[in-house]
């Protein structure tokens, strides 16, 4: 879990540099990931925080809406996001067999 799996990246403007590997939008279905950072202005990030979407939490995309926006599972709840928002969530893969939480 400490060694992130390296994949093709768009980490150019990501705040955590090397540790950030992916954006949520690029994660394949049913692949659990850990949120690393939220690349959004405060007023847009706060609603995410209030719902428990914080760095360190586990997110799993489980479906996409008819328009291709991601629907993710987090803490047993389903949440619909926009593609644009998903592109602002920096995540890294976690090993499903030794799931952190």
């Amino acid at each position: 879990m400490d060694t992130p799996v390296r994949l093709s990246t768009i980490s150019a403007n990501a705040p955590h540099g090397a540790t950030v590997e992916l954006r949520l939008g690029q994660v394949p279905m049913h692949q659990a990931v850990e949120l690393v950072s939220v690349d959004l202005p405060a007023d847009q990030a706060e609603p995410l925080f209030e719902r428990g979407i914080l760095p360190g939490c586990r997110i799993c995309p489980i479906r996409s809406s008819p328009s291709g926006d991601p629907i993710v599972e987090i803490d047993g709840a389903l949440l619909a996001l926009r593609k644009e928002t998903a592109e602002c969530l920096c995540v890294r893969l976690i090993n499903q067999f030794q799931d952190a939480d």
Partner: protein
Amino acid sequence: MAELGFAGGGRTASDTAVAGPAETPLVALIGPPNSGKTTLFNQLTGLRQKVANYPGVTVEKKVGEVALPNGAEVDLVDLPGVHGFSARTLDERITRDVLEGRVEGIRAPDALVLIVDSTRLEAQLMLVEPVLDLELPTLLVLNMCDELEARGGRVDDGPLEERWGVKVVRTSASAGIGIEAVRDFLTGVGVAVLSAPQPERTVSNVPGGVALPMVAAFTARRVRVREVVQNAGYQQPSPSKLTERLDHVFLHRLWGPLVFSVVVLLVFKSIFAWAVPVMDGVDFLVGASGDWLAASLPDTWFRSLLVDGVWAGVGSVVIFLPQILILFLFLGILEDSGYMARAAVIADRMMYRVGLQGRAFLPLLSGYACAVPAILAARTVSDERDRLATIFVTPFMTCSARLPVYALLIAAFIPAEPLLGPILDMQVATLLGLYGLGIVAAIGTAFLLKRTLLKAEPTSFLMELPPYRIPSPRSIALRLLDRSHIFLRRVGKVIFTVAIVLWTLTQFPRTDLGAPQIEESALARMGHVIEPVIEPLGFNWKIGVGLVTSLAAREVIVGTLGTIYGVEKADEEALQLQDAIKRDLSPGAAVGLLVFFAFALQCMSTVAVMRRETAGWKWPALQFAYMLMLAYVGAFIAYRIF
């Protein structure tokens, strides 16, 4: 209540004047959206609810009385669902203001009931800390416990109680399980609260204020919550199989939008086809009771006022109640079952293109019944600019108050000639065209607004998708009852006043024979004053008076014209009125009048609710002027073309 009254009876009136502790204790019900707040509220209060309307703020907060086992009573206020107290949405601001005791007409609560959905416990408990910061007696309700267990989850109350120092109860509000435990807590509050006034409080969303950066503060809170939840042996339930299966269809690339369209069409169909028989029934009752009243009263000015003025006026509005209730029945089922959240997700892309967001879908759909509840429903739109844009365009949706106007004019001027097949004739096509006109105006306006006045960076859209559940008939029935009260009271008052004023104006100046000829009445003189303004649209003074009175509410024009033409029955289906109006309007002007009503904001209730929801006159004034301009130009063009 009597016993408690005696218990506190030692105090004098002056003691109680400031904080009013002699009043019934007040408990606030808070929790995240979709955690079952309103269901619990309904379980506890039953029919003992009143919709409180607090001046200054936007509200339609609900307060209900809870009868307790010891014979006492507690007032319970149902607050909007929130995830936090950042006051980003109007709902959050209202909740915060109520908790801090800053809302006029309602004092700060004496205790809190925090209700959370136990199937999503971790995320929901993020609200615990800010709530506990209020330092009020608090009850933590773990709702939907039956569902948690059925899906293989579990949690112990003990560690939660210990760590946070609150009492915890488990409920299933929809099944009525655990309600007594909540009642017991309220009884305790009732006994404890008859004491000193409460200190002032403030709510903060971010723990520790500015000490930590926001992310760190939230993360710290989150870590604490996780720790507590783990100590409580929380086992997250396995995903709902039913929800998975239904979402597979409802959010399917192909079936999803298809089901969505069918649902929207069904709602429409219900407003028209199914409501009409009931409306005819109500119409008949109003007419019959008016006739009976006329027959049983002596022929005096009072009878004229009551029957021609008040009864006809108020009756013309009451007939819309079935339509509004059917629409709200549908919306209630869609919301409570969990489908509305999916519909919002499907609609989001479309809405996003015109500058709105998925949450605007519900208000806009409600707008087909009435703009007033629709504008209130827009409070869930998270972004303030999006919310303003949504409520700005909502009155373009063809509300049910336009129907009687459309019905009268279409029946009088548009021939029922077949156009396409047996179903679509000219009349139906005209009606559909007017609906389309409203939609086009709404889309165009939203597009324009979001590129000018309400220009903003695209915002995020987050939508929780709750598990599908079977709606509780009791909860929906209570909501319909609530709607009926609001509708009858609000609109009834307006129509009542207009009817009296209008009738009075037709009775003066008095002549030797009593009431003057209509052409000589004060009303006609007023009408002639505005005639030059509407003359380019092909309207005469009678239509002008109708336009002015319909500023109160659109359908009033029908009643107004009825009175003016001196027709006994001011009913939109009465042949006399149709014939009379045909003499007064050219076909072009009639189409112009239809277009005018499609655009103009002829509704005092909407203006009033806009003022409350935007806390000022700027937006309602702009909206009124803009829609009037569109209406005038549109009617002018239509008059020239047809």
